[in-house]
C-alpha cells in the first residue's frame, strides 16, 4: 500500500491514540479531509484488516439520534501505521538533507 499524503494524515490521527474510536465526521475534521477521500480510504484499510469498524450501541440519552459507526486501528493496523509513518518521516529527513534527491512521493 502506497502511503499518500491524505493517508498519512489519517494514520497520524488514528495513531495519536490507538485505542480511541473515531466517527467518520471526527476523522474528516481531524485529518482535514473531504468525505470523498476519507471513506474510500477507510474502506480499503478495513478490507486490509488495518482498521475495524463497529456500530455504536444505542444510548437512551442520545435523544433519538441514529447510531453511528466508529473506526479504530486494529493491533496489526497500529503496528503497520507506526512503521509507515516512521518510514515516511525518515524519507522526509533524507529528502531535506539532500537537495538533489526528489521529494517523497514525487516519483513513481
Amino acid at each position, binding site marked *: 500500500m502506497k502511503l499518500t499524503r491524505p493517508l498519512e494524515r489519517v494514520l497520524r490521527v488514528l495513531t495519536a491514540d490507538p485505542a480511541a474510536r473515531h466517527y*467518520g*465526521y471526527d476523522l474528516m475534521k481531524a485529518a482535514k479531509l473531504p*468525505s*470523498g477521500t*476519507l471513506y474510500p480510504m477507510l474502506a480499503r484499510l478495513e478490507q486490509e484488516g488495518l482498521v475495524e469498524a463497529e456500530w455504536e450501541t444505542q444510548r437512551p440519552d442520545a435523544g433519538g439520534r*441514529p447510531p453511528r459507526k466508529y473506526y479504530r486501528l486494529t493491533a496489526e493496523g497500529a503496528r503497520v501505521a507506526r512503521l509507515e509513518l516512521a518510514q515516511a518521516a525518515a524519507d522526509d529527513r533524507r529528502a531535506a538533507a539532500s537537495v538533489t534527491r526528489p521529494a517523497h512521493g514525487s516519483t513513481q
Partner: protein
Amino acid sequence: MTATPHVQRLAERLIRVSCRRLPADQRAERCKEWSAELPAILHDQTVRPRFMRSARALSYSAGIAATTRRLSRAAGWSRRAPASAWRDGAARAQPGNLGLRATIGLAIWLVIIFTSVSLLRAFPHPHGWTVVLILALAAAFAVCCLADIVQAPAVRYLPKWAWALICVGQIPGGGIIYLSVGRVGRSHSLPPGSAQSP
C-alpha cells in the same frame, strides 16, 4: 431552525441515491452509516454560521457520491450493467448494415437541406441562413444525444426515456446535462487490463 430539516432531507436523499451504486449487501449499512453523520454535521456548534453547516452537510453528501463511485469502480461493478459483455463490443452495431445506414443518413440530410432551401426561397429573410444553421446544429446535437441514449446499454440515475425527454425538451441544456451526468463513460468502466473495443 427552518432550513436545517430541509437540508438534512436533501442530503439524506443524495446519500440514498449514491448508495444505489453499491452492491445490495452493503447498501443498507453504508447508507445508515453515512446518514447518521448528518445530524452531527448539522449540529456541529464549532462551525458557524448555520449556513456553513448546511453547506458542509451538502458537500459531505457530494463526497459520499464520489465515494460510492470510487468503491464501485474499484470493485469493478456498476449498478445497471453488471455484465461487461457489451463493453467488449458484443452487442454493438453490426458492420453488415453500414451501407444501408449510410444511405438512410444521406437521404435524411438531403431531405433536410432541400426543405430548408425551399423554405428560404418561399420566405426570404435577412437572417434566414443563420437561423437554419443554428437550428440544424441544435437538431444535430439533440439527435446525437438521443442516438447515444438509445445505443448505450445503461444510463445513470434516470430511465432512458426520461433522459430522452430531457434531451429533446431542453436543447442544448438537456443534452449537456445528459452527457455530463447521465452518460456511463465507457473508458473508466472498463475492467482494468482489458482492451478497449474499437
